[in-house]
C-alpha cells in the first residue's frame, strides 16, 4: 500500500475514534432493532437512542426532548432556517446571518430570498468577527431569526455567542448557531448563550458521518418548527425517518469523549498549532487568516503571497492532506467567500492553506508538514525567479 499523507484536514472530517467505533458495534450486530418497534429488539434500540439523546443534551445544557436527530449539520441548518421561516413568516420575513457562514446556512437563506424573505448578511472585520453593534442595528421589528455560526470551518474563528444571544434575547428574536465545528471543542451552553436552535454533527468530532442533531428550545420561548422531512412522525413529528441507532450511539460517545477531555485536548492541539505556525512563519509573505486567539485550537489558516494555491496543494499532496477552502466547496475553483469577506485580495485568497489539526496528530507529523510546506514554497519561488 502506498504511504498515506499525514491527515491535517480535520475541519473537512475527522478520523473516527476507536472508542466510538467500539460503542457502536453492538448496535449493528446485536441490538439492531428499529427503535419504533414494540418488541425487545425495538426497546433495546430505543433505550440506546434515549441515552444518546441525554448525553448530547447534557453536553449543551439542554433537555433530551430538545434534541432532534438529523442526518448531519446540513440537514439541521436547513431544518432550523427553513423550519423557522415556515413557522414564523406571519410575524416577519427578515433573517440576519453572516457573510462567512457555511453554505449549509447560506443556501437555505438564498432559497428563502426567492420566496420573498429578506436576508441581511452581516460583514466581518479583517479578523473574521462580527460587530455586535451592527447586529443590533440590523434587527428590525420583522426579524424572526439570527443565525451566526459558533466556529468557522475555514478560519476557525469563534463568534461571541453569549453576547449575540443577549442581544437576540433582548429583542425577542430567535437565535440559531451552526456549531458543526464547535461541538465538544469549545464549551457550549444553550442557557448561558441564550440559544434557541443549534446545529450539530458527529463527523467533525471523531464520530460517524451521517448523523447530526438540531437543538430546539422548548421553554422560554418554545420554538415552533415546521418539519422538513415528512413521514413516520419520529422525533415528535419534527423529523421523520427511521432513527439511526448505531450512529446516535457513536455520536453520543464522540461528544462525551470530547467534553470529558476538552481542556486537556485543546491544550495539546494548541501546542501543535503553535509549533506549525512557528515553522511556517519563517516564510516570507505568509499571513494568518482570522483572529489569532479567538479561534478553534486546531485551526491554522494561512495565505502565502505570490503562490498559486492549487499548485501548492498539488505539490504537498503526497505529504499532507490539507485543503484550500472548505471541503464542500473545494471542487469549485473560486476564491473562498470567507477569505473574501475578511477583505483579502482575491489573489491572496487563492493561495491559502487550511490546516485542521486533530486529536491523533503528533509533534513529529507537524514538523514534517511544516518543513514540507517550507521547502515546497521555496522551490516554487526559486522556479519563479529562474523563470
Amino acid at each position, binding site marked *: 500500500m502506498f504511504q*498515506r*499523507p499525514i*491527515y491535517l*484536514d480535520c475541519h*473537512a*472530517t475527522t*478520523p*473516527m475514534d476507536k472508542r466510538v*467505533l467500539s460503542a457502536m*458495534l453492538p448496535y*449493528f*450486530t446485536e441490538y*439492531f*432493532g*428499529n427503535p*419504533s*418497534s*414494540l*418488541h*425487545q429488539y*425495538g426497546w433495546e434500540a430505543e433505550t440506546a437512542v434515549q441515552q444518546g439523546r441525554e448525553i448530547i443534551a447534557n453536553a449543551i445544557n439542554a433537555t433530551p426532548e430538545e434534541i432532534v436527530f438529523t*442526518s*448531519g*449539520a*446540513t*440537514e439541521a*441548518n*436547513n431544518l432550523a432556517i427553513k423550519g423557522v421561516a415556515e413557522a414564523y413568516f406571519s410575524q416577519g420575513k427578515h433573517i440576519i446571518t453572516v457573510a462567512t457562514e*457555511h453554505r*449549509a446556512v447560506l*443556501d*437555505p437563506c*438564498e*432559497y428563502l430570498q426567492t420566496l420573498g424573505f429578506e436576508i441581511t448578511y452581516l460583514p466581518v472585520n479583517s479578523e473574521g468577527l462580527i460587530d455586535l453593534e451592527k447586529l443590533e442595528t440590523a434587527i428590525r421589528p420583522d426579524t424572526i431569526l439570527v443565525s451566526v455560526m459558533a466556529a468557522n470551518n475555514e478560519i476557525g474563528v469563534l463568534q461571541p455567542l453569549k453576547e449575540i444571544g443577549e442581544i437576540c434575547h433582548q429583542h425577542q428574536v430567535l437565535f440559531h448557531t451552526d456549531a458543526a465545528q464547535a461541538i465538544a471543542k469549545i464549551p457550549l451552553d444553550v442557557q448561558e448563550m441564550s440559544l434557541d436552535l443549534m446545529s450539530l454533527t458527529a463527523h467533525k468530532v471523531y464520530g*460517524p*458521518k*451521517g448523523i447530526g442533531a438540531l437543538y430546539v428550545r422548548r421553554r422560554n420561548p418554545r420554538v415552533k418548527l415546521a418539519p*422538513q*422531512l*415528512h*413521514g*413516520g*412522525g419520529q422525533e415528535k413529528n419534527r423529523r*421523520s*425517518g*427511521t432513527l*439511526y*441507532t448505531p*450512529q446516535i450511539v457513536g455520536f453520543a460517545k464522540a461528544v462525551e469523549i470530547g467534553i470529558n477531555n476538552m481542556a486537556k485536548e485543546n491544550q495539546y492541539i494548541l501546542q501543535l498549532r503553535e509549533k506549525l505556525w512557528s515553522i511556517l512563519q519563517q516564510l516570507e509573505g505568509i499571513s494568518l487568516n482570522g483572529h489569532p486567539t479567538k479561534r478553534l485550537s486546531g485551526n491554522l489558516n494561512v495565505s502565502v503571497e505570490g503562490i498559486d494555491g492549487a499548485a501548492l*496543494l498539488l505539490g504537498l*499532496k*503526497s505529504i499532507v*492532506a*490539507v*485543503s484550500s477552502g*472548505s*471541503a*464542500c*466547496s*473545494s471542487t469549485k475553483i473560486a476564491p473562498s467567500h470567507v477569505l473574501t469577506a475578511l477583505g483579502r485580495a482575491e489573489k491572496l485568497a487563492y493561495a491559502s492553506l487550511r490546516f485542521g489539526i486533530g486529536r491523533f496528530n503528533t509533534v513529529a507529523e507537524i514538523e514534517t508538514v511544516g518543513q514540507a510546506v517550507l521547502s515546497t514554497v521555496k522551490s516554487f519561488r526559486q522556479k519563479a525567479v529562474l523563470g
Partner: protein
Amino acid sequence: MQIYLDNSATTKPRDEAIATMLQVMSLQYGNPSSLHSWGQEAAMILETARLQVANLINGVDSESIIFTSGGTEADNLAIMGIAQKYSHPKHLIISSVEHSAIAEPAKSLEKLGWEITRLPVNTKGRVNPLDLKAAIQPNTVLISIIYGQSEIGTLQPIETLARIAQSHNILFHTDAVQAAGRIPLDVQQLGVDLLSLSSHKIYGVQGAGALYIRPGVEILPLFGGGGQERKIRSGTQAVPTIAAFGIAAELAAKEISQETPRLMGLRDRLFDLLADCPYLIPTGDRLYRLPHHVSFILSNDFALKAQEVTGKTIVRQLNLAGIGISAGSACHSGKLNPSPILLAMDYDKNAAKRGIRLTLGKDTTTADIDWTAMVIKQVLTRLIPSCCHYADVK
C-alpha cells in the same frame, strides 16, 4: 429462543456490510469532497457503492443514484423535489396505501394548494390501473405509487401504472423500499422515472438510502449546502454507511434468484400453518405479495370474545415468547390509531387496530416458522380457549 420476524421494520446488518463499513470507518475516513488522496479514496468508495446500488435496479448509469439518509428522505426528495419546480400548485396522484413518507409530504403539498388524488384500492390493497387512467388531469405532474406495501405486503402493478404515466408524459415514482432486494427490480423494464431505496431494509446499516433519478429528469434539492450529490442532496455523505449499502445491494442482487423463492416458501408455510385458525384473517394480496411478508387481522369474532384485543396485544405476547413482530408498520406502531392502510381497504375502525405483521428475513429458518406458528396459536388459545388447534412442540 429469539426469533426476529420484523424485517420490514429493519433488518439485521449482514456481516459483509459491517465488515466493509468498519474498514471504511477506520481507514478511509476522508471527506469525499476533499481533493487530497484521503478525499479521493472516499470518493472512490462512494462511486463503487453507487454502481452497486445502480446494478440492483439495473440503473445503468450510476449517476442516476443520489444517496440520501434513508427511505424517508428519498421519498420526500422525490415528491418535494419535483413539486418545487412548479411555482403554482399542480396535481399529484398517489395511492391510498402509501407509506407515511409519501402520504405526509403529499399532505403538506395539499396545504400549499396542490390537488392530491389518492387512488382507491381493492380489498386486497391493489390499485386498479383504470382508476389511474381516469384520475389523470392536464395538470398532473407526478404519480407516486408504492411498490410493495409495508403493512399488508401487497405488490402494485408498477410496470402497467408506469406505462400509463409515460403515455401521458407524467413523471412516475415508486417507493421500492420494501420491494428492493426481495424481488428483482429493473427500472428500465418498469419504466419508472424515480425510485426510492433504503439500506437498512436490505441488510445494510441504518442511515443510508437512495433515490434513483432517470437521467434527464430535473429535480430540486430538499436541502441546500455544499452541493454534494450533483447539487441534489447537500451534506457530507455518510461514506461508511453508504459503502455498507453498496455491498448489501450487490449481495442482494446476487442472491435474489435463490432468496426470493426461499422466502416465498417460508411465507406460504406460515400462512398454511395458520390457515386452520379462523380468527386470523390474512390481509393483502396472497398472490401479488412481497415474498417475506405475512400479515393478518384478528377477526371480529375474536375481538368480541377477547375484549379490547388489538394487534399490539399479540405483539406483546409474542415478545414475551421471544418473537419480535409488529402491528402495522414500525413507524406508526408508537400510537394506537387505526391503520390508514387497513382503513383504505375498507376494514372498519376497530378492525384496523387489529393488524399484525410477521416479516421474514435471510436468517429465518423453517424451524423458526414452525415454532412461531405454534406460539401464535398458543397465545390466541390463551386469549380464547379452544381458538385453534396446536400441537405442543417440546
